[in-house]
């Protein structure tokens, strides 16, 4: 699935991933391929993504994530790779 992490300043990450873990407002959750449409609030924490290149953690400062048809878009207020 395709993952994008964008902040108002820039695009922090864009690429194909096999799974991604998000710091949801109510706790960690993971999104895999073909996940049902979802909009979730996020709190500050790490987004851990697994891609062909391995695992990677990106720290975000809260925001919202939208999952739709294998497109995952994270709108974060700030992010550090």
């Amino acid at each position, binding site marked *: 699935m395709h993952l994008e992490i964008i902040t108002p300043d820039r695009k922090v990450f864009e690429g194909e991933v096999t799974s991604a873990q998000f710091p949801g407002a109510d706790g960690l959750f993971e999104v895999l391929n073909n996940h049902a449409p979802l909009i*979730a609030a996020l709190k500050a924490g790490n987004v851990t993504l697994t891609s062909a290149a391995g695992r990677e953690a990106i720290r975000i400062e809260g*925001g919202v994530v939208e999952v739709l048809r294998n497109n995952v878009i994270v*709108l974060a207020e700030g992010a550090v790779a």
Partner: protein
Amino acid sequence: MASLKEVRSRIQSVSSTQQITKAMKMVAAAKLRRAQDNIIRMRPYAQRLNAILANLTRTTDNDIVSEYGVAREVRRVLVIAVTSDRGLAGAFNSNVFKGVNAAIAERYAGLPAANISYLAIGKKAHDYYTRKGGVVGNFTHVFAKLSFDTVREAAELAMDGFRSGTFDEVVMVYNEFKNVATQIVRTEQLLPLVKVEALAAPATPRDAKAVSALVEATANVDYIFEPSKEEIIQTLIPQSLKIQLYKAVLESNASEHGARMTAMDKATDNAGELLKALKLTYNRTRQAAITTEILEIVGGAEALAAG
């Protein structure tokens, strides 16, 4: 008539001024391009946020009550004035100050001056309102390295102030970028939120098109909402408010460089005209001096011949 030497030194000084204004114009043009890039880079974020918010507000049945939407009796006001760090940009900064005064005269005429605080973004506004009194926070560093993080601090200060009751209303005054030659001074109410739906309303027709395309694409999707629609909206509202201020700052930044470019272009033209006039004077004076000299020589020669 001025002496040749005086005219020559004036020509020298005007042409070096012209070089400076020309260079400043070029620098402003380059910075303007970067400022516009910043606006473009923010667009996908703002459009997505608008689309999600529009989607949510449309599908929730109950009215959304946000802590940022409570209108109270207005006793203490925060005015956010967005200016630049540097001058030489025509009437750019004084237009903001005029806009602030007009807004206060129009909306808060009955309030004592002590109840009006200013959040100054940019050195010019900071200096001006420090002299006037009533500045909150220090945001002179915003344009040194323009990023969402610094603007967010300012927005959070205003939002926390509103939530805690320090301010009953927050308005912002900034220059909107229309094109290089035109900046429009805008006064917008940031808090309290007039309507949550208004936040989802995109700013420009172009944005509106993009957002409605996004909304349409997701119209029939049955989303799972985590934790709940209302709570997502509550997290999106402050996010969207910050974006509003960030957008104003970016617009103002682009406007500043546009205004400076136009001002410096005019200054360069004026210097060119001044140079033309000075060169004419210079040549005339030189010609007159030569004529006098010839006359003197001829007169002397004639006197010799006669003698």
